[in-house]
């Protein structure tokens, strides 16, 4: 997992609440057996016409957002299906950070396991950032996970809260399985105590 400490990037806005993982990566693209190859299909039903041409009205197809690495969007992002393909597709498109008022539980875990930083911010802050991303495009944000701050070039500076264990893993790019296997003795002890009698 690629660590993330400080990140500066262009913000793309998606003005919508409750974006489910069926929208992030539609089911027809879930048949691959690799972790890669999903970026081109990110939001595919919204991003492309049925014949494959780009839909001009979709945000990520606009010139300023094609190289965006920070997504700002509505509450309950990533609800629905547990498909980790959603996190893979977002990462492969180039996103490193997602800002929203709230995230669905399974998506939050999947993002964390793929080096994707999700940040919960108050509704008004999200709104403000989304408006700037529209009116000042390309609008840049500086995200500092060590200091837990986001800042823009116009004076915006906000602290954010993040789960400290997840922060530690993201800062260091730590593999969760490796961390758990360091406690193999605890697992073995549990198994010995719970063997069927």
């Amino acid at each position: 997992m690629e660590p993330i400490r400080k990140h500066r990037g262009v913000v793309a806005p998606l003005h919508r609440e409750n974006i489910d993982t069926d929208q992030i990566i539609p089911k027809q693209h879930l048949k691959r057996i690799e972790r890669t190859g999903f970026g081109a299909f990110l939001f595919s039903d919204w991003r492309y016409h049925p014949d494959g041409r780009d839909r001009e009205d979709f945000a990520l197809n606009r010139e300023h957002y094609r190289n965006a690495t920070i997504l700002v969007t509505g509450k309950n992002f990533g609800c629905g299906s547990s498909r980790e393909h959603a996190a893979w597709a977002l990462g492969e498109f180039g996103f490193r950070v997602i800002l929203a008022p709230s995230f669905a539980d399974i998506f939050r875990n999947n993002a964390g396991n793929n080096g994707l930083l999700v940040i919960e911010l108050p509704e008004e802050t999200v709104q403000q950032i989304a408006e700037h991303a529209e009116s000042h495009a390309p609008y840049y944000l500086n995200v500092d996970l060590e200091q837990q701050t986001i800042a823009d070039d116009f004076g915006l500076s906000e602290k954010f809260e993040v789960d400290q264990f997840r922060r530690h893993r993201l800062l260091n790019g730590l593999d969760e399985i490796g961390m758990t296997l360091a406690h193999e003795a605890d697992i073995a002890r549990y198994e010995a105590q719970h063997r069927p009698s």
Partner: protein
Amino acid sequence: MSKPRTLFEKVWDAHVVRALKGEPTLLYIDLHLVHEVTSPQAFEGLRLAHRKVRRTDLTFATIDHNIPTTSDERLVIKDQIAAQQIGTLRKNCEASGIPLFDIGSGRQGIVHVIGPELGLTQPGKTIVCGDSHTSTHGAFGALAFGIGTSEVEHVLATQCVSQSKPRSMRIKVTATLPHGTTSKDLILDIIRRLGTDGGTGYVIEYAGEAMRALTMEERMTVCNMSIECGARAGMIAPDDTTFAYLEGRTFAPKGDAWDKAVSAWRQLATDNGATFDREITIDGDKLEPVVTWGTNPGMSVPVTASIPNPDDARDASERAAMLAALEYMGLTPGTRVEDVTLDRVFIGSCTNGRLEDLRAAAKVMRGHKVHRSVDVLVVPGSEAVKVAAELEGLDRIFKDAGAQWREPGCSMCLGMNPDILAPKQRCASTSNRNFEGRQGRDGRTHLVSPATAAAAAVTGHFIDVRGWEYKS
């Protein structure tokens, strides 16, 4: 005296491998169900790291998401990428020694249908699967939740998940559900009240007289859709209904072990005086059959109502969401739900693809003909459900009515196989998600109970099934 605990706390506490302040808890997993779509990258990850599957005796696999439901195509899958994904699961199971309930084994089916019917799902267990509807298994008093592929790999390697402890919510449903109103209508009503994120961060325990009165299959429908209000899991305390369902099933304990298990399971119910972070009470006898009109499972109305008006939205963002949903669904505010006509009906899925669901649909369809403009697909949840339904003659009722009787799988719930809606087709579906494109690009899904779906298949439009004319 120890502190009174909830059902959830008891199951959680019994599975803690390691708990340190400031870190997620390492929780032991008793049952890991695996399917073809969310596992290949997990097995690949294990191989790259030279890791092995820790407990092949607690891991079971089946094929459900992308298999075709016609008998010919099931044997020779035309979609090469789908065939490769299934082939990969077979290879991975063989190489690692994981039992696979393969096509034609008599045990294949949707993971959340076969776990319970084989008796693998048991009270007090922790159960995970790379599928969000794993919450289904909570109907037995298990703590069951969906995980992503990295977590699937983590469980394969360590038999544990790393989890922050969720908060707890109790939803009490009083009285009994009125005639013609089902557990599907109940859970759709709950999701409408909570919203699609009202349960985020919580494990919900369903309690109250109405829940006690439900059969196991009805309880599974409720727990199945807990994820649709964002909840981590849904749970119902095990009782005599649970034990009667489990006794004698293939993987259920036998003899003395059974008696011991039942007395342990009786201790799982929430103690008097245990507290929840949130409590909600619902009058069960006031519920009505429900139909979703929008593009998430929280957007629903009673079948007797009309399509809502965005001008009545609570705020600007709800109004925007309603406008977008109405446009996608091709609906006009004020239209009576009963005037909405249909092109397709889908009866099946991990929500409503069990024997009782098929019985409920068949009871409505018996002696009737499917409306000429409606194409009806009935897909049993498992090979065992299909055999049992055919023994009762349910297949004949469906076929005589003009519906298609198919082979088991997830089918048109998510349309990963050839069963999909054409653009703008409108479908009454017993599945769990009405998201945009879920059943096919630009397809329009209305979530309903099996009885409501069957009635709509006959009339060609939604209808209040409480007034249905049953034929014998």
